[in-house]
């Protein structure tokens, strides 16, 4: 009985360490690049999605 209790304690601690490690390693993980950019999944894997600032954009004036 005492042996089973000990076993349960070891299992509990092991699971606790695993959960802690999982959360710790994911603490800085994000769906994006290190710079916080959006990533699009294309045919050749992930690529950075350009962010267009439409307060700056003033294009398409070539024939107007």
């Amino acid at each position, binding site marked *: 009985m005492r042996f089973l209790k000990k076993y349960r304690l070891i299992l509990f601690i092991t699971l606790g360490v695993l959960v802690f490690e999982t959360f710790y390693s994911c603490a800085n993980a994000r769906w994006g690049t290190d710079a916080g950019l959006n990533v699009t999944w294309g045919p050749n894997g992930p690529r950075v999605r350009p962010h267009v600032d439409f307060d*700056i*954009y003033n294009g398409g*004036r*070539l*024939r107007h």
Partner: protein
Amino acid sequence: MKINLFLTPIFLLSFLFSANIKLPEEIQKTIHKQTNSLSIENPSSSLWHDLITPDLNISKEFYGKIFNWTFVDVNFKGINYTTIYNNDKVIGGMIEIKSAKNSTWITSLPLSNEDLNNRIKTVMSNGAKVLLPPVKLPGRGKQVVFEGLQGEEFSLISKNEYTAKMDTSEANGNWLGIELWASDVENAKEFYKNAFEVNVEKTEYDNKSYWLFTLASKTLAGMIQNPVTNQGSQWVPYIKMDDPAASVTIAKKSSGSVLLAPTMKIRGGKIGIIQDPHGAIIAIQKK
């Protein structure tokens, strides 16, 4: 006598150069014009466009659906290349480079062989890097791809059978022109002024600046402050379509990304901006 006739001008020129004697300004201008000036009949519409893509089939399917382009594959000694047709008229090409991480549209200025050689030297002397050294392709002549001072890519190409046949009308699916999205506008102005001897005219629309690259009072290209906050400078081609909203919807359904869906708030809904499945940016605009 013959030798004297041949040697005299050489000695004379050597003397002028060694003595650092400046030729009269008018003569200098004439020499410069004869050797290095751009001679483009219809600048804004005579540019050639190639898509560099890691997968030709995916790109052909994508652009075929959006713009109704058709393609004719051309065998260039192991290079997978296709010519783009709009309404059965040639307008550009696509080159497959399997190792390329992204796709990108490269705009080329077609020049005569002599002008091309002179222009390569001028562009390089102004600081552009050669990305693809001059290559000769059957039927296409010589092509050299450069990286400008801010990382934007452009190319020079020999006038060839394709550029000669190019449809430059304003039909749906044809090119409207190109725009440089420049992170450093002043730096880009200086570079293109010196490398191509174009005039750069500043205009203003909606309280925002817009620059035109002109040559002999004809528009060659436009320039805006780079609106992309997480990418460097790049040349962006514009395609004419009567219904940009419909084109953008098709792009989205065909694995493309929509950067701007036409909205009345921006240019009265005339413009859509998309990214193809491999990342190349292209703008769609109605007149």
